[in-house]
């Protein structure tokens, strides 16, 4: 039993790298706000790359599409985290970090924000919390990207998998003669 066919890894790697890189770069990553378009697009890309070389089958292999999309999502989550780290460091070096801290202070001093939310944000913005936040973010992205890219893989399978014409139905069994011919008194249910 194998859920991962040959050739899936290459397609999933390319789709995952593309979706991860696009999701990590700030202006492009905004597209994910539109129904997770980049992540779903990565799954569709992986499905396209895999199914374009596959022969036609009687049934669309949605299962393969789902596995392919999920793999692309996992690769994408790791890629996104790896690229996002230096991008964040660069943003901090350019002074965007100070703006974040200013925004955080504004939120923390707002009496309308619930206490639980304030504690949570303060924890994430602390030095230890930042590192924990990276790993926490990775864990969440592995799940979320995996699921959404799987949906992309399903859509890709429906669009790009080649479907052959349905095979002809099997010939019906020959109709036995009626009344059945006598066969020496043996009714066929002998118990020996």
């Amino acid at each position, binding site marked *: *039993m*194998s*859920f991962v066919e040959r050739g899936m890894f290459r397609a999933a790697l390319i789709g995952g790298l593309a979706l991860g890189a696009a*999701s990590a770069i700030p202006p492009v990553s905004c597209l*994910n*706000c*539109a*129904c*997770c378009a980049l*992540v779903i697009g990565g799954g569709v890309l992986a499905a396209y790359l895999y199914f374009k070389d596959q022969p036609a089958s009687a*049934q*669309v*292999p*949605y*299962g393969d*599409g*789902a*596995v392919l999309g999920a793999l692309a999502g996992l690769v994408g989550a790791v890629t996104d985290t790896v690229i996002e780290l230096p991008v964040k460091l660069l943003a901090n070096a350019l002074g965007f970090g100070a703006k974040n801290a200013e925004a955080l202070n504004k939120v923390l001093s707002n009496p309308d924000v*619930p*206490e*639980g*939310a304030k*504690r*949570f*944000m303060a924890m994430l913005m602390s030095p230890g919390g930042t590192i924990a936040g990276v790993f*926490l*973010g990775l864990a*969440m*992205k592995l*799940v*979320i*990207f995996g699921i*959404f890219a799987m*949906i992309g893989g*399903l*859509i890709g*399978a*429906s*669009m790009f*998998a080649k*479907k052959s014409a349905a095979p002809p139905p099997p010939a019906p069994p020959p109709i036995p003669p009626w009344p059945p011919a006598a066969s020496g008194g043996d009714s066929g249910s002998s118990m020996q």
Partner: protein
Amino acid sequence: MNFRRNLPYWLLVGGTACWVAAVVAAPFARAHGWGWGEWTYLAFHPVCHQMPERSFSLLGEPFAVCHRCFGLYSGFLFGLLAFPSLGRWRAFLLEHPRWVVAPALPMLVDVALGSWNRTWDRFGTGLLASFPIALLAWVAAEQLYQRYRAGRKENYELR
């Protein structure tokens, strides 16, 4: 529907129901000051802008995702629950799989409208877009489960 024979279907329904419930439970938890509510908001953050003015609210707090995303998730759940009794639609979509993307066109138009769209446009078009995708997920789960069972049977016979 027999539970054991349709295990992948019921697992899919259960998982989706939990997902939709998490979206609705997040504002409830935040309003009561429970910490896990913030984790839920954080979990949905990579896939949604979570703008309060573009989200439904409960107890004065916004849902964990926007109108459109909530429509997408609800449509998926609704599709899963409805497709077992929509035999003709199911057969049509499985015969013409490319048609599953057609219901997403109104949503794309709605996205293009930007600030002109309204709450129920966003929710409704999202609901419509994800409805047929549920069928694909169901078929995929069935195919993978059949493959798993065939593999287990093969291993058992080899032993």
